[in-house]
């Protein structure tokens, strides 16, 4: 019998969310509000930390009765859409925030990576930030000194090590930040969606590093949106939705069911999708709307093999940087990512921060018939502003590329159909 190294028992966490302001006020009301503002503000702020049993209005349970165990040396994936409580769970387990009910027991030294580069200061040099960030993550000074050269080599920043990080490109910044995090050696490691940083080749390197950590027999709790990575790293998965455990078990089974549920959501959607405000959380810049068109500019979610698809995407909020790039991922109903694109990495196309509406053209769609969902990401310098899991869905309703009346579907004929020819030679 393997030993559980983390036991989680009925863990719950309650948050208070701000009450909405009432619209349309009369002049008198406005004046009164203004006069009473200090008192109202005081009550509102005080209530942030006070909970009464009878007011359930502005209260949400970010976690509700979560229970599961993790054995020593296990790598457990946590999946679920944005706002489902994954990060809150990691925050509770890493003691950043307190649970409201329930308890968890952890047997070992815990490190958490909820973000890379926590506490990085722009004015400090790369070298100084390695020490500062390492210490914040719980490394000893001696440990940092020993691993210093390794960290610098891993980050590939070379001679810039003594330059203030404010002069770094955002890619370098992220690489340095991850390099430090990658050299943590706790017994239990809690990782939020931080692998999704930097360019693709660096992501691969990070993934390799995490795999080493896993092989080293350490216990890892791993939150990710990327089912490919989850399948790659984890044997067991917990699926969380609305703060509750939906399903836990072997990775293949849970991911399959999760994908099915995602597809069902897509089915319900149509060709104009408004963002559910609950998913946005505290992102400064986020998607708020997407529309799907075919190449004749008609709104539709139904496509035939080899047709083209256009997405019109709307944003809200203000990016903190002066440019951003956009990524799309297309998943089939088996949960495989069948295609993707990124404006920045592959097209060198960045949108300036005042652009609030963009169009992505995709196609020709050479996929087999079936249901597909599109995930959207908006990012700047390798850091994500927003990930929209189920941005849009579409169906390939007809896939007869060779006009033979034979329907080619995702279940039998694979993910996509390539140009092909069969010729006699002899």
């Amino acid at each position: 019998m393997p030993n559980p190294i983390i036991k989680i028992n009925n863990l719950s966490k309650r948050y208070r969310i701000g009450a909405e302001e009432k619209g349309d006020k009369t002049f008198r009301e406005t004046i009164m509000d203004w006069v009473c503002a200090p008192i109202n503000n005081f009550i509102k702020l005080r209530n942030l930390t006070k909970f009464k049993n009878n007011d359930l209005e502005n209260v949400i349970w970010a976690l509700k009765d979560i229970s599961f165990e993790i054995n020593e040396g296990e790598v457990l994936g946590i999946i679920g859409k944005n706002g489902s409580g994954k990060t809150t769970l990691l925050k509770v387990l890493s003691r950043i925030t307190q649970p409201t009910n329930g308890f968890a027991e952890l047997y070992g030294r815990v490190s958490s990576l909820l973000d890379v580069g926590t506490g990085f200061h722009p004015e400090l040099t790369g070298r100084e930030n390695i020490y500062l960030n390492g210490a914040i993550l719980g490394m000893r000074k001696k440990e940092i000194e020993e691993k210093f050269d390794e960290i610098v080599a891993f980050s590939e920043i070379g001679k810039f090590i003594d330059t203030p990080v404010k002069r770094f490109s955002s890619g370098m910044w992220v690489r340095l930040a991850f390099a430090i995090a990658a050299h943590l050696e706790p017994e239990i490691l809690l990782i939020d969606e931080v692998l999704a940083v930097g360019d693709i080749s660096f992501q691969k390197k990070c993934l390799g590093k995490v795999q080493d950590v896993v092989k080293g027999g350490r216990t890892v709790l791993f939150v990710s949106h990327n089912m490919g990575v989850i399948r790659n790293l984890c044997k067991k998965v917990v699926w969380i939705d609305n703060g509750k455990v939906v399903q836990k078990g072997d990775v293949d089974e849970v991911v399959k069911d999760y994908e099915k549920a995602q597809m069902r959501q897509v089915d319900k959607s149509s060709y104009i999708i408004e963002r559910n405000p609950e998913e946005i959380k505290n992102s400064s810049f986020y998607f708020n709307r997407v529309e799907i068109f075919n190449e004749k500019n008609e709104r539709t979610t139904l496509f035939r093999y080899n047709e083209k698809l256009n997405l019109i995407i709307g944003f809200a909020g203000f990016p903190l940087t002066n440019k951003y790039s956009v990524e799309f991922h297309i998943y089939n109903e088996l949960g495989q990512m069948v295609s993707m694109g990124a404006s920045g990495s592959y097209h060198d196309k960045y949108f300036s921060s005042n652009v609030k509406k963009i169009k992505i053209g995709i196609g020709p769609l050479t996929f087999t018939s079936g249901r597909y969902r599109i995930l959207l990401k908006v990012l700047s310098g390798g850091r994500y502003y927003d990930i929209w899991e189920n941005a849009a869905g579409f169906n390939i309703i007809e896939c007869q590329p060779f006009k033979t009346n034979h329907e080619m579907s995702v279940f039998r004929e694979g993910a996509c159909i390539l140009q092909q020819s069969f010729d006699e030679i002899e």
Partner: protein
Amino acid sequence: MKLVIKPKKGLANLDFKELWYYRELFYFFAWRDIKLRYKQTILGIVWAILQPFIAMIVFTVIFGELANMPSNDIPYPIFVYAGLLFWNFFSTSINNVSQSMLRNAVIIQKVYLPKVILPVSSIVVAFVDFLFAALIFGGVIGYYRFIPYFEGLLLLPLLLFITILAVLGLGCFLAAINVKYRDVHHALPFFIQLLIFITPVIYPVSIIPKAYQWILALNPMTGVIETFKAGFLGTMPINWMTFGISSAVSIVFLILGLWYFLKTEKTFADII
């Protein structure tokens, strides 16, 4: 090592073993603040000297020359600088401490650490300023060929200790409140500015009727500054009564401030 995570009522306990473990992080925070304090400035550390020095000149002109404020027969610049030395340490560090949670908000939201190390480490940078300002004090004394009572310097560690207790107490309280009510950020600089007038920096306590001097002593800095002036400059015999009251008030501040901080710190990450 077993770690249990569950809802805790009441005070967070001060786990000294844990604080010892985090001593390096404490050191790194202090080091960061010192490094950053005068980054990208032309004058750099000279600012630490310039502020009390200019204040000394202004106060000397206005209060020493124009208002003819008594200074116990000591050159007024020396008299006022002795007060400013401690006063600046007090006001700078209380500002730092009360902002320490907000300035490190990102860290508080992303990693676990015993939060009490943040206010304590943010005093260190003010202490560095104090040391540089003290050098100039030596210069001022030399300029006036004034001979102080060097044995009074023996009191220095004790006086600094009392100041730090008061700063930590008040500062932790304000830092905790500041997390929830940002009013502190606006109110504090203003009140600190006023507070100097009820501290014997620019005037000696002796100009106040004896019967009311104890009220002034409720301000911890009164005891510290008066005792320093008495012991080092020899303005008058040390008033142990004033010093005692001020020290007691500092200790009460420390207990109350720390109590409030530890009581509320578990909610910081949620509402900051």
